[in-house]
């Protein structure tokens, strides 16, 4: 008699456990970001995030549109876009377009994380990237990286800092 009771309770307990697991799986399935079935440790998750950042510049795949000096100047003056300086930090500190943020190709992951809150806030805004001059590639690479990170309106000012300063436009120093 007793044993039958214990066995019955054990079966009920097992059923409760199975039902709970089913409920948990169902809730997870309908979550906006379901948790993967194989657990990823905190270290693995951080590595995946960094990987995502570092491997982002697929610049051949997603070329950005180009704009000239006249258009760039009116965009800077209107303050309607996010201006990105893709050169290395010392060049940026030495002189950059007023209001530009330094998101360098060289330290992209580090700079991106530093700027992520600003960029996330202005996600829908137009982004214009420049580098040193006509022949540099950093602006195209950073623009492509931003496109592959999900930013939609990314353009490259081809003349770069050289064309900007030669036209006698204002320059900010850090």
């Amino acid at each position, binding site marked *: *008699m007793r044993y039958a*009771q214990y066995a019955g*309770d054990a079966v*009920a*307990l097992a059923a*409760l*456990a199975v*039902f*709970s*697991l089913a*409920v*948990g*799986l169902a*809730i*997870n399935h309908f979550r906006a970001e379901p*948790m*993967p*079935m*194989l*657990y990823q*440790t*905190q270290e693995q998750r951080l590595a995946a995030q960094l990987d995502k950042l570092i491997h982002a510049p697929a610049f051949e795949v997603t070329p950005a549109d180009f704009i000239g000096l006249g258009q760039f100047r009116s965009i800077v003056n209107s303050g309607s876009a996010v201006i990105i300086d893709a050169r290395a930090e010392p060049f940026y500190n030495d002189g950059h377009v007023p209001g530009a943020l330094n998101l360098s190709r060289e330290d992209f992951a580090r700079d991106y994380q530093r700027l992520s809150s600003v960029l996330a806030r202005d996600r829908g805004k137009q982004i214009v990237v420049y580098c040193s001059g006509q022949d540099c590639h950093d602006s195209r690479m950073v623009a492509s990286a931003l496109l592959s990170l999900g930013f939609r309106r990314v353009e490259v000012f081809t003349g770069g800092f050289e064309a900007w300063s030669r036209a006698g436009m204002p320059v900010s120093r850090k």
Partner: protein
Amino acid sequence: MKPLGRTQAFLRWGELAIRLVVGGVFLYAGAVKISNPLQLADSIWSFQILPRALVTPLALGLPPFEILAGAMLVAGWRVGALAVAVATAIFSAAFASTLARGIAVDCGCFGGGSAPATLAGNLLELLRDLVILAAALAVYVARLGARNERRGA
């Protein structure tokens, strides 16, 4: 039904109090964890007991289990008391294992990350679980006895 003696009345109220408190604790623990299974998974992983493949199923299944077991215990279902007892027995064994290995773990009992992981804290959590285990077992035995009495066994 014969009138209750003093001792029996005391036991009956005591049992009700245990059911409400322990069942309430389980309901609360499950409810605060159910929205963040990833945090719970990190806590489970920190115990260094389960293989990676079992961490996610446990992190997803444990909160609903705690909520259901807690609700059943409050409602006075014998299986609810058994479920709480078995769960706390497993929690206690897990804490005993980490304490024996000298690993301080984030318990994750009530959502995790609320208190820094210390061995002293883990020892207190082990003692708390042992108290809950004893209380849940007492309710289970009392419910089993009451059932058999009703059936004249």
